[in-house]
């Protein structure tokens, strides 16, 4: 007998939703590149000017150029970190909001299904993943509703009409089989 506990370790797959994970990574990369470009442009302008100014001044008490531009550079670096982090936080919070709104609608639809509402569309907003997921939830609810309606119609027919005994028996067994198909 195969020992399930001795099977080789299966590698976890982390990259599952390219549009969700990949596009978020891309958004952060664009943000970092944008921050770096602005930083480069500002430092090129200000640091270049400062270095030219020092060379023109003719007064060189420092041991290296860094001593003269340390403060200027430190402020630019701090601004780069703060700017990129704040914008990154905004991107992340937007993603969290989109996730909560999108998946939250699917959760609400499933909770409403417990009460019997299987037809109100999920209408998950936001990212494509959540819209697609909402459609899948709706498809599952729709399939269940169709089956339940078929069962109801058949039950109503058998309860009110009086088909011959043999036919009644066949349809009665068929109905039981149909009921077994609910949430298999």
């Amino acid at each position, binding site marked *: 007998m195969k020992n399930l506990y001795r099977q080789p370790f299966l590698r976890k797959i982390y990259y599952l939703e390219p549009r969700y*994970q990949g596009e978020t*990574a891309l958004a952060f990369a664009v943000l970092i590149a944008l921050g770096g470009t602005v930083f480069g442009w500002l430092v090129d302008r200000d640091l270049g000017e400062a270095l030219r100014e020092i060379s023109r001044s003719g007064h*060189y008490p420092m041991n290296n150029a*860094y001593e003269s531009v340390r403060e200027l550079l430190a402020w630019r670096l701090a601004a780069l970190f703060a700017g*990129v*982090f704040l914008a990154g936080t905004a991107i992340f919070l937007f993603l969290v909001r989109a996730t909560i709104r999108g998946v939250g609608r699917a959760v609400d639809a499933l909770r409403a299904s417990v009460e019997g509402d299987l*037809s109100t569309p999920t209408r998950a907003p936001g990212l494509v993943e959540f819209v697609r*997921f909402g459609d899948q939830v709706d498809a599952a609810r729709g399939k*269940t509703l169709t089956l*339940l309606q078929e069962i109801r119609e058949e039950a109503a027919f058998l309860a009110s009409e009086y088909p011959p005994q043999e036919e009644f028996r066949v349809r009665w067994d068929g109905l039981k089989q149909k009921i077994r198909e609910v949430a298999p």
Partner: protein
Amino acid sequence: MSRGGAPLMDRAFKAWFLVRLAINFAVGVAALHLILHFVLSRPLTGEYADVFYAFRDLARYLRPILTASVLAYVLLASGSTAALCVYGLHKVAGPLYRMELLLEGYLEGNPTRHVSFRHGDQLGPLAEAFNGWVGTLRQNRQRWLSRMEEADRLCLQDETTCRAEMQKALREIEAELSRYR
């Protein structure tokens, strides 16, 4: 927050992601600082004219130096952030993917198992809502079948009682099903 239940995404997860993001950006900025520090902190040696030319050359070659250092920063910070997005957001994408597979199976008529996510996964209320729905359907299914089987048992008596019980069971099932719309 999902209405009336646990949050879809934990506060701890959000804080964890933001801290990692801050660390990534800080490491990138630190690397950028290190490169610029290395370039700018070369000692100014020689005569007065040498220092003058050293400053002038530094100003002249600042743009390529900055371009290379910013590029290194972008690659480092973007690479580590991309890894964070793939690994960190897997805790959201994973449950979503699992639910998609489950729903596909449900639509194909495969037996549906109780959904449970891994430790640390987000979107817990989604699994609870799905389990709640399927659980209710199964309870109802069992009740309807039990009611029909009870009517079947009464068929051992006489034909009239049998038919009456069956029709009573069917009316009850129909009434219960009328709430689904």
